[in-house]
């Protein structure tokens, strides 16, 4: 309990309970078993994007990927276009992940090789990718997917969506293990905490960050595939707003914006909080304006809270060393 990070997790638990309670008070339809399935439908897409953003932030720099939503839109369109040209769907999906990786690699080159501040670089690619997605399609959606493809995001196993079982949970476990049990994980934390010290002790800081930007693109591709399966169509604005939501989730989950602090478990809890809140507001028929305002308040509030916790943690680390 004295560890500020686990305090953070308890705080998030409390917030999740509060969001659930608010949902129950706002709408009589909230406390039903069907709500859980409905809620979990939204979790995987947001969740994987939040985890990608967490990784990019953790490695420091300061790192941020604002192009993550635009990458997602563009990959979705690419998969739909390839499928339209006769490429088998599964191959198209695999190629889509590759394209996501390439789009991420563009960010990686700009940030890690040319050393352009991540904020500016990914803002520019965000502009370009989302513009490309709109301009190449003229704003219309691409569809025509076979029915079986819908199983991934529309099918249920034990009442829980299939993409929860096959994508979100495995990815969360893999990334959690990667961060907490492997050398790469400790290198990521080291790079985020003190770039110079990490470099001097042999961590290839910028190579690591390069890989994480590419990974962020691949994960955006995963999100695109799940969205395709869900809506059976690729929309040029599929990822709109996702960059802000993913940053909100990462920060709310305890990832420090300057890197070095954060956990996947926090991100997972944060996704649950954000989706619970959104579903509750939707069920209560509260206008979209308030949903936007709630996310904004959550983002600002969580960073303010995080800075307080982060400062204490840093002070503690300094005293310990």
């Amino acid at each position: 309990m004295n560890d500020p990070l686990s305090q953070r997790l308890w705080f998030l638990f409390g917030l999740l309970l509060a969001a659930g309670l608010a949902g129950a008070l706002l709408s009589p339809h909230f406390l039903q078993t069907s709500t859980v399935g409905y809620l979990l439908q939204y979790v995987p897409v947001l969740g994987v994007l939040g985890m990608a953003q967490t990784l990019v932030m953790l490695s420091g720099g300061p790192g941020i990927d604002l192009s993550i939503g635009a990458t997602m839109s563009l990959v979705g369109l690419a998969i739909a276009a390839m499928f339209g040209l006769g490429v088998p769907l599964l191959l198209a999906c695999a190629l889509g992940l590759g394209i996501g990786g390439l789009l991420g690699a563009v960010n990686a080159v700009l940030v890690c090789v040319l050393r352009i501040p991540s904020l500016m670089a990914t803002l520019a690619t965000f502009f370009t990718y989302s513009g490309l997605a709109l301009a190449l399609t003229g704003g219309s959606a691409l569809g025509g997917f076979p029915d079986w493809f819908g199983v991934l995001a529309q099918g249920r196993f034990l009442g829980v969506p299939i993409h929860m079982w096959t994508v979100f949970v495995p990815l969360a476990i893999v990334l959690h293990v990667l961060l907490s049990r492997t050398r790469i994980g400790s290198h990521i934390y080291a790079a985020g905490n003190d770039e110079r010290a990490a470099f001097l002790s042999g961590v290839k800081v910028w190579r690591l960050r390069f890989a994480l930007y590419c990974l962020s693109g691949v994960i955006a591709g995963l999100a695109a595939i799940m969205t395709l399966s869900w809506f059976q169509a690729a929309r040029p604005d599929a990822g709109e707003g996702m960059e802000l939501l993913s940053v909100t989730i990462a920060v709310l989950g305890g990832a420090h914006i300057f890197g070095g602090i954060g956990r996947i478990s926090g991100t997972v809890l944060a996704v649950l909080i954000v989706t619970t809140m959104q579903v509750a507001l939707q069920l209560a028929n509260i206008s979209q304006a308030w949903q936007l305002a709630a996310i904004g308040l959550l983002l600002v509030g969580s960073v303010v809270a995080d800075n307080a916790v982060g400062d204490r943690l840093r002070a503690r680390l300094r005293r310990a060393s």
Partner: protein
Amino acid sequence: MWTILTSKVQKALWPRGASSRPFHIGREALLLIALAVLCAVFASQSEFFLSERNLTTVLRNSVDLSVVCAGMTIVIILGGIDVSVGGVLAVSAVLIGRAYQLGMPDWVVVPIGLAAGAALGALNGTIIARTRVPPIVATLGTMYIFIAVLFLVIGGVWISGLPASLSFLVLGEFLGLPAGLYVIGVIYALSWYLLRRTPWGQHVVAIGCDEGAARLVGIRVDRTKIQAYALLGLFAGLAAVLYVARLRNVEVNIGTNIALEAIAATILGGANIRGGTGSLLGALMGVLFIKITQNGLVLIGVSSLWETVVIGGLLIVVLVLDAFETRRVS
């Protein structure tokens, strides 16, 4: 400490010693050449492009962005950024629209718009200065909130048919030149004076160069930050006044792109995103570059959907060139 800071500030204020690099072409000159090339290309493709009417249209369309960009340049020199400026503009504009609908006269409506802008800007500044939240995150959050306010006030319907009593500010003519030119001139002269001829401007540059050192030498960092963000908000409020004067309506999606365009124009104009350096004249030329590109693409028959791609691509190119430049210098 004073010497460290002053040397950094000096380097920021006069970044390129003319003596050390005699053949160096400044950013503004480079932009001027690029603008000329751009105009030549568009003029060769469309006869209408260089007509007086079209050029006046480009200028009228650039007025709001230019005004916002002056404030954005100051905030970026300070080492900050504000992505919520579109939201500030939207909230000011919707308040102006509602005030007009209630039958208020110009001399009440305009101060309402300006005050709303300045207040929201000051709110951003206060959050950033007092809580040390990174400006990008704080303003992303407030942007959501401002857009929510817009939705709540506007209720999903355009406000249209507003009075034309202020239209002369943008659409009129004075001494044979479009009135918008004078508005831009006044705002840029004022910003230049504030930034380059007052102690406050030197403080802004000092904070952008090295915030810690600026704090140590006794500059009131927090207060200066709040003032700079409030100034940007005030300019966004003025842009809202000019927007309503020009179009006489308030759209639901007002201000969506203006923050990104303003940041792109400022960076194009030579501002360093890490703070410390930037050029008002360069930013103004960045605005012209963006607006001429948008206008020219439509004239030569390219879908306006390609605008964002072109601006984004341009921004990447400039960032890459800047990165090579910094690498060469260091």
